[in-house]
């Protein structure tokens, strides 16, 4: 990684250097609070019990969790607990995982192939297709909901995970193809040509040469598609009716919209929904951020 505008620190006077360090660290602190505070507030709330909204009055505010316990989490995972109209939280997680994994796999396959085609070949209709892909990003969610509902209904696919997998894949593919194309553009074409001279087929060259080199971008694509599907709410709530089929965001909103709003339980659900993302992000953030920016900075 290049470090470009690190100011020529040798030429600076010690005082201004100290001031600058002070400024840097205070800004870092401010931004860390900015990011972490809402999250920590969520965690704090998730540890509080017995705070049905009606009873949580004005005088009871506190900065630290009152009656801290993990009761909310236990409640969340209790099989068939009343709070979720008979469906336990792990079911939602399982559904989200299924939909997320399948849609990111299919997205990956399609966008790697497509991006390779766009990056390496000049063919009729190439520019048009690339432009169309940008246009797909502008179609509003609501504009897609009705027609897709009709279409899926026609094939009897409403209320299946397949409906969600298909929809999420189609959202992610254009974006992922675009940024993978940028990634492939940065890999010298000579490497493949050499391997093809040595007897590789096209697909062989793609698999043996391009794929390993583009791995960071490819991993970024997969994570991106997974996150999009894991987080999506509107389509999931419109296409799925069966309780046992619903995904995590729907489950969360389900707890949230109950008659007696239990903030502790809602917050615990939010925390549980975020944990897989935190884990994924901790291991993959280098790829995700690197891949996201590498494709686009080239413009």
């Amino acid at each position, binding site marked *: 990684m290049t470090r*470009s505008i690190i100011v020529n620190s040798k030429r600076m006077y010690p005082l201004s250097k100290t001031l600058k360090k002070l400024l840097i660290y205070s800004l870092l602190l401010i931004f860390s609070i900015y990011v972490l505070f809402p999250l920590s507030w969520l965690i704090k709330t998730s540890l509080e019990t017995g705070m049905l909204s009606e009873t949580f009055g004005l005088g009871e505010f506190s900065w630290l969790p009152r009656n801290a316990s993990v009761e909310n989490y236990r409640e969340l995972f209790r099989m068939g607990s009343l709070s979720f109209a008979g469906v336990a939280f792990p079911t939602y997680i399982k559904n989200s995982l299924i939909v997320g994994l399948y849609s990111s796999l299919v997205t990956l396959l399609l966008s790697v192939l497509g991006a390779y085609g766009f990056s390496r070949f000049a063919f009729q209709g190439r520019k048009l297709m690339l432009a169309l892909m940008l246009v797909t990003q502008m179609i509003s*969610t609501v504009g897609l909901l009705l027609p897709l509902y009709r279409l899926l209904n026609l094939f009897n696919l409403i209320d299946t995970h397949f409906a969600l997998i298909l929809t999420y894949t189609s959202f992610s593919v254009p974006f992922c193809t675009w940024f993978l194309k940028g990634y492939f553009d940065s890999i010298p074409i000579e490497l493949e040509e050499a391997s093809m001279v040595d007897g590789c087929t096209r697909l062989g060259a793609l698999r043996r040469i391009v794929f390993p080199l583009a791995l960071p971008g490819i991993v970024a694509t997969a994570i991106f598609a997974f996150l999009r599907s894991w987080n999506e709410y509107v389509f999931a709530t419109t296409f799925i009716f069966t309780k046992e089929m619903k995904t995590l965001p729907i489950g969360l909103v389900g707890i949230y919209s109950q008659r007696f709003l239990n903030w502790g339980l809602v917050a615990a659900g939010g925390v549980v929904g*975020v944990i897989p993302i935190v884990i994924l992000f901790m291991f993959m953030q280098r790829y995700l951020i690197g891949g996201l920016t590498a494709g686009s900075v080239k413009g």
Partner: protein
Amino acid sequence: MKIGKERMFPYFVCAPTLVLMLVVDFYPILFMLYLSVFQVKLLQPDYKPFVGFDNYLAGFRDPVFWESTGNSFIWAFSIVLLSLVIGLVQATLLNQDFKGRGFFRALFFFPYILPSVVTAMMWKLIFEQNPLGLANHILISLNLVDQPVLWLNAKWVALFVLVGAGVWKGTGFFAVMLLAGLQAIPTEFYDAGRIDGCSSIQLFFNITIPSIKNIILITSTVYWIWMFNWLDLIWILTKGGPGTSTHILTSYAYAKAFKSWDFGYAGMLSVVMIIIMISIVTIMLRRASEAVESL
């Protein structure tokens, strides 16, 4: 034979993507165009007269349509502008020399990948009114207000809270994109500027900003599109309320389609949104024409 196969190869690898796009993205546009010239209401399933531009004229006369269009613009542009400014500060900060830059880059980016549902809940929790939320607690204990502020019950306050949530989510995205742009600026530019006696502020405005102009435009455009289309945050936080005052076009169309079951009108709104978006994006990206050239 070999040459023929080679020529078909790009079509072969791009075909699945194209088919998917045509079915899942372009068929809906046509279908919405079609819907928008009929009167289609779920409550009268067999009665579906062709009404021409009536839905469009109705929109023209509908004050909520104009209000939600205005809100859409206020919402999308203020989120992009604020995220851009804060993101630029974050990116400049991350481009300095200190320990743990990778960690902070990841930390700043993190809100961007959170589910909107969770973001909405965190925001609701902080701005809660009935059980006293954090924001009200702070205001009351500082004696700035006597009564809890009803954050989501007045148009401008509610919009302010919604924009806050969008900005919180977006700054990290801007930060990492702009950081990548900053790191691509050759150090020689700055050396040359310094030899010519530029101050840090002059360097920033005369070298840094022009060098990352394109990435600023592209990132802003992409984020603007996402914000203009974003539905779930508003839907969970206010549902367009109080009344219809915080509806943006997306939430208004959703409400028309799935609350009033007026599909023709919702179709019209979707068509209007696409037209607005394509025009704005064309204007915003004209400046970054190199990006389009490099197709």
